[in-house]
């Protein structure tokens, strides 16, 4: 068996090697955006900070941040490049991080289950230590509560507080001592550690009646023994925001006044009160080590308060009032002198003013207006500051801003250094839009009016260029290269005329319209990944409500007008897209559904011509939650059909043409919808459309249920995958013996994945399910039960035409011949019971009894990796064979030839001559993991979640876009680029050969004539 397997795998290797990437094509045919995600600014301890590694002795600082995509990253503040990043697993979310010297330490998982430390400059992990099982972690909100990291003042100890009551001391990766809070009864939740040379203070809140009391424990830094434990007499009403721990002091707000308690190993101090005005809140600006913080008074103005010799002193009053949109940030310069900034956003004038103050340089203050563009970046969500003074008299503040649209920016005084659009790490819909052909700017317009004389004059003028043209032509003819399938698709923009994007020769250049969960839409150039345009989605009528937020509905982005539909001037009418978004606010429970209709080339509103700058205005559709959205397509028009939770139908555009079209089509339409039943089960219910007419013209359409998929008890519908409807090039497969297998091409098929309901997950019989359904009648075409993986069902599946591929983890290994591992299963459906049976499945009604007359051929393969997404390539006419594209968990995007996963590969024997004619190779249980089919090559495409494919103008080639944390785009040619000249085609060789032959003719012609002449003489 194995002996046989070797030549077979060699053969398959040879077969698959034929299409692979050349090193010189990397970066030309593909691009990769390495992202880190939007900084997590919910907590101070995961927000971006500037840090100077002291040992480095340089002015240069780096930005450290933990992000919502669960990445720990270091960014260069000068150019915004990612110095390093460490991607955490999704269930292991970063709760806090802290940096000192050249070390960054993080706690992740519930209650801070795992400690990791990294080298600041290289990002190499130094320690990874499990502190407790994630399952035993403390589940509280916010999840960073009760976790803290502190460094020893001079020594290399790291102190961690986890689960709100356990303190560990680490030295060189080993635990020196552990301290656990004993008393469970008093409900003390510790939240902060402060280290000094004499003691380690653990500060927390003990809940008492209607308020909290501060509790401090002093531990010995060497042994972890309790030196003292004391409750500070205090009344804190609002929890965590109202107390701060400075270098040697605890500060809190009690009844609008600031109180402090000096920390000493014996905890024998007394609380003092700052004798001054009344205060509202305390703001931690990260200068606790310098004993500084901001207190916002009840009058709305902020004050910088410093701790001097154990006393609190008001050091500075800020001039501009503190609003919810204003931010305070502290920063250090290279000599570790503290600075404080206040970014004030005026809600009325829309100006962003910055005040910078340095306590050690009394009176010196920098103040300027930040030219900040609210329309493209939304509002500021967080500010961090760094000071890069070269001259001690000039304060050069560098501000890092994170915004509500998910971007990260750095401003050095008024000048903008860079922007990282990190919102792209959370795309929730992406669509390819083809570009129109180039509109030649010079020709056209003026020519039509040009008379005969004018033309003659112009052409005579042009003649002067003829010699140079001829030279160029001959040069190009002899040596020139042609556009190949691997040439770059990016086009240099002409500097003179601002032009709309246009396509390249083979249509590899398209616009990728993508929406992020941060309410922004991007137009991305597929040739190089540049952002062509970006727009903020407006919140509509909820604009005046607090916390109004726009979230595009996942995957509901439709191309309503393609290049083919556009006629005439593309400037006025380009391809258009429609996207739907949900507007929520903190004030009201209801949500609005807005529809945005925009031009895919410019990002402008396609309906109304509005001011270019502002956020896009959406069209209000409904305030009921929507069930699903579809695009109905006839020959000429495309209509967006929305179904709300009451199954009422909304149409866009809502005019008579689309109404008529929908009314005509309504009787034949069927849609499967997932609905939650009264028992909490997620069911799949098929619907058809009916109409009620009120008057002659007014028709109201709504859907009504027709069938329900009967699932075993405790099974929930996990997801519904509508197959990709690509053109079908052939309706059957001709076999080696000249018989035909007719493809089962039911146009109403949907793929349903099910998972056990959370309550029945413990049932030993619980399993995952995969169903192929006929959505008209609800009949099951194909079904399979699959084992549950780690925790949930993690089945990945793709379906097109008559071909289904799925991937799952099989844990069962006890039986003979069984093995643990990932399995890839391929299923092909054919009509009838045997070859040459034909039921015309693509045409007959779903109610026909012949509809379920089919045969499934299937084979299962062992696949070496877990995958996070699967897709199939798609080409223009569907003639090219389809490749499977998978995103492996090790950050690679790989393709598989369909030939390898043909379910008819002969098992246990060599293919006979008929099968060899079909290019079938012997079945080998292991799918070869050929690294040359990894077309993402050296790129580490982290956490890929989705793969979308799009045809190019070349039939042989398909564009593949992968998104998740990173963005990656490349081209794939499953059957080689058969429709363009092979790039290894050697034009020089051809020209040389022709010249050689000409030379040969030249030489031999006189010889032949001489010979003929001689023959005539001597005959």
């Amino acid at each position, binding site marked *: 068996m194995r002996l046989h397997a070797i030549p077979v795998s060699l053969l398959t290797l040879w077969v698959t090697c034929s299409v692979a990437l050349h090193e010189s094509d990397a970066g030309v045919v593909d691009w990769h955006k390495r992202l880190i995600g939007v900084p997590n600014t919910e907590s101070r301890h995961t927000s971006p900070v500037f840090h100077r590694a002291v040992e480095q002795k340089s002015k240069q600082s780096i930005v450290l941040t933990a992000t919502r995509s669960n990445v720990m990253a270091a960014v260069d503040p000068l150019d915004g490049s990612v110095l390093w990043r460490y991607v955490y697993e999704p269930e292991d979310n970063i709760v806090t991080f802290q940096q000192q010297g050249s070390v960054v330490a993080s706690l992740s998982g519930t209650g801070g289950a795992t400690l990791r430390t990294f080298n600041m400059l290289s990002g190499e992990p130094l320690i990874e230590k499990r502190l407790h099982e994630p*399952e035993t972690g403390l589940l509280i909100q916010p999840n960073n509560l009760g976790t803290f990291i502190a460094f020893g003042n001079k020594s290399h100890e790291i102190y961690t507080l986890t689960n709100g009551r356990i303190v560990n001391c680490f030295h060189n990766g080993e635990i020196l001592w552990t301290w656990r809070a004993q008393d469970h009864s008093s409900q003390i939740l510790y939240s902060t550690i402060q280290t000094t040379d004499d003691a380690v203070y653990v500060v927390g809140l003990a809940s008492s009646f209607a308020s909290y009391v501060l509790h401090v424990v002093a531990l010995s830094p060497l042994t972890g023994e309790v030196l003292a434990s004391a409750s500070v007499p205090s009344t804190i009403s609002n929890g965590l925001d109202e107390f701060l721990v400075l270098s040697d002091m605890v500060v809190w707000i009690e009844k609008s006044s600031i109180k402090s308690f000096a920390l000493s190993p014996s905890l024998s101090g007394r609380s003092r009160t700052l004798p001054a005005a009344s205060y509202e809140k305390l703001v931690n600006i990260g200068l606790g080590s310098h004993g500084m913080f901001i207190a916002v008074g009840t009058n709305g103005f902020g004050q910088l308060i410093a701790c001097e010799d154990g006393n609190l002193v008001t050091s500075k009053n800020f001039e501009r009032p503190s609003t919810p949109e204003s931010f305070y940030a502290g920063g250090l310069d290279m000599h570790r002198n503290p600075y404080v900034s206040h970014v004030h956003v005026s809600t009325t004038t829309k100006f962003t003013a910055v005040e910078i103050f340095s306590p050690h340089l009394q009176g010196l203050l920098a103040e300027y207006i930040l030219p900040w563009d609210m329309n493209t970046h939304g509002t500021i969500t967080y500010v961090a500051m760094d000071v890069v003074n070269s001259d001690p008299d000039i304060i050069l503040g560098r501000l890092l801003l994170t915004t509500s649209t998910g971007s990260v920016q750095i401003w050095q005084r008024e000048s903008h250094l860079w922007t990282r659009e990190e919102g792209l790490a959370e795309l929730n819909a992406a669509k390819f839009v083809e570009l129109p052909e180039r509109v030649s700017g010079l020709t056209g317009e003026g020519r039509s009016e040009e008379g005969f004389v004018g033309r003659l004059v112009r052409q005579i003028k042009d003649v002067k260029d003829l010699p140079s043209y001829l030279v160029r032509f001959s040069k190009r003819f002899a040596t020139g290269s042609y556009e190949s399938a691997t040439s770059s698709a990016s086009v240099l923009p002409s500097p003179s005329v601002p032009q709309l994007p246009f396509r390249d020769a083979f249509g590899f250049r398209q616009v990728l319209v993508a929406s992020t969960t941060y309410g922004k839409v991007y137009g991305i150039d597929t040739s190089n990944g540049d952002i062509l345009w970006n727009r903020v989605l407006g919140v509509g009528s909820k604009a005046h409500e607090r916390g109004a937020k726009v979230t595009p509905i996942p995957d509901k982005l439709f191309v309503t007008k393609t290049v083919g539909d556009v006629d005439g001037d593309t400037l006025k009418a380009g391809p258009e897209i429609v996207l739907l978004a949900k507007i929520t606010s903190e004030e009201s429970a209801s949500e609005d559904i807005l529809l945005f209709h925009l031009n895919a080339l410019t990002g402008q509103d396609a309906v109304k011509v509005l001011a270019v700058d502002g956020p896009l205005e959406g069209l209000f559709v409904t305030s009921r939650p929507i069930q699903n959205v579809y695009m109905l397509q006839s020959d000429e028009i495309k209509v967006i059909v929305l179904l709300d939770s009451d199954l009422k139908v909304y149409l866009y555009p809502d005019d008579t043409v689309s109404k008529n079209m929908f009314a005509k089509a309504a009787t034949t339409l069927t849609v499967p919808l997932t609905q939650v039943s009264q028992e909490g089960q997620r069911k799949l219910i098929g619907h058809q459309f009916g109409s009620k007419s009120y008057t002659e013209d007014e028709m109201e359409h709504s859907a009504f249920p027709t069938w329900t998929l009967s699932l075993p008890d405790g099974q929930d519908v996990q997801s519904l995958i509508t197959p990709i409807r690509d053109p079908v090039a052939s309706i059957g497969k001709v076999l080696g013996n000249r018989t035909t297998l007719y493809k089962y091409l039911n146009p109403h098929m949907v793929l349903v994945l099910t998972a056990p309901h959370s309550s029945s997950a413990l049932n030993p019989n619980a399993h995952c399910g995969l169903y192929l359904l006929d959505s008209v009648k609800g009949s099951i075409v194909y079904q399979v039960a699959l084992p549950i993986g780690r925790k949930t069902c993690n089945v990945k599946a793709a379906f097109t035409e008559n071909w289904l591929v799925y991937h799952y983890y099989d844990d069962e290994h006890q039986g003979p011949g069984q093995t*643990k591992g990932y399995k890839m299963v391929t299923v092909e459906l054919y009509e009838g019971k045997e070859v040459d049976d034909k039921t015309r499945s693509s045409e007959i009604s779903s109610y026909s009894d012949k509809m379920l007359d089919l045969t499934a051929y299937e084979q299962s393969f062992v696949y070496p990796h877990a995958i996070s997404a699967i897709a199939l390539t798609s080409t223009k006419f569907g003639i090219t064979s389809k490749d499977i594209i998978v995103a492996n968990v090790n950050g690679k995007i790989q393709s598989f030839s369909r030939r390898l996963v043909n379910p008819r590969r002969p098992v246990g024997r060599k293919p006979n001559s008929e099968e060899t004619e079909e290019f079938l190779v012997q079945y080998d249980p292991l799918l070869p993991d050929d690294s040359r089919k990894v077309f993402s090559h050296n790129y580490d495409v982290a956490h890929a979640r989705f793969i979308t494919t799009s045809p190019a103008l070349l039939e042989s080639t398909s564009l593949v876009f992968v998104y998740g944390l990173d963005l990656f785009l490349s081209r794939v040619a499953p059957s080689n680029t058969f429709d363009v000249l092979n790039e290894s085609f050697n034009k020089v060789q051809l020209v040389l050969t022709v010249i050689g032959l000409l030379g040969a003719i030249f030489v031999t012609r006189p010889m032949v004539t001489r*010979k003929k002449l001689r023959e005539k003489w001597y005959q």
Partner: protein
Amino acid sequence: MALQILQTLVLLFLGIAVDVKGRISWNDVCREYSELGRSRAVLDDEKFSGGILKDGTFIIPNVPSGTYLLSVISHDYLFDQLRIDVTESEETPTVEARPYIPGTPMNPPSTVLLTYPLKLSARQKFDYFVPRESFNIMGMLKSPMILMMIFAGGMVLGMPYLMKNMGPESLEELRKEQAKMSHAQSALQNGDFRSGMSALMEAVSGQDQPSSQPSPQAPRTQPATKSRGKGKRR
């Protein structure tokens, strides 16, 4: 959540779970962490996992008893998979590691026991690219088509001189052969396959036989040899 509680319970009931420890030993394929990059050692479908540290060590914490498949998730390097058996003895659970070949049945386990703590090393660095075929004049000249062309060209030029130096008898013979071949060719071109083929066969056999029976005292006249050969076979 319920599942989590159950898992905790399971952990408690099965007794002490064990940390699976190991180390990536740097070799010529992968020399240090900066080459390896972010990698993880995982059991089964990432049920348990541990990150690989700068010094190459990894710890997969709290693994209950059972049989697992250990694999290293790395972007650029190939590592062997191992079968890990965590068994619970009285006090200290033991960890056994065995080699495992992907795609083969798990049972019966291999008889080879590997050392513990585990030692793994990179087998191979993935190669993502194929080299481009470059143009060179020698390679072009070496190709069979070009060689044939050159040979044919040489024959065209050299044939008259060759013919000149040949004896009249062999010249006669050559003419005959040529006539036969041209007859066969014309027959084939005219679509008369049968006669064409037979003519061709005749021509070929006529050419072949003498060369296949080389004899030291090869007489010059072919027909004689032919008849003698036939006679012998009878």
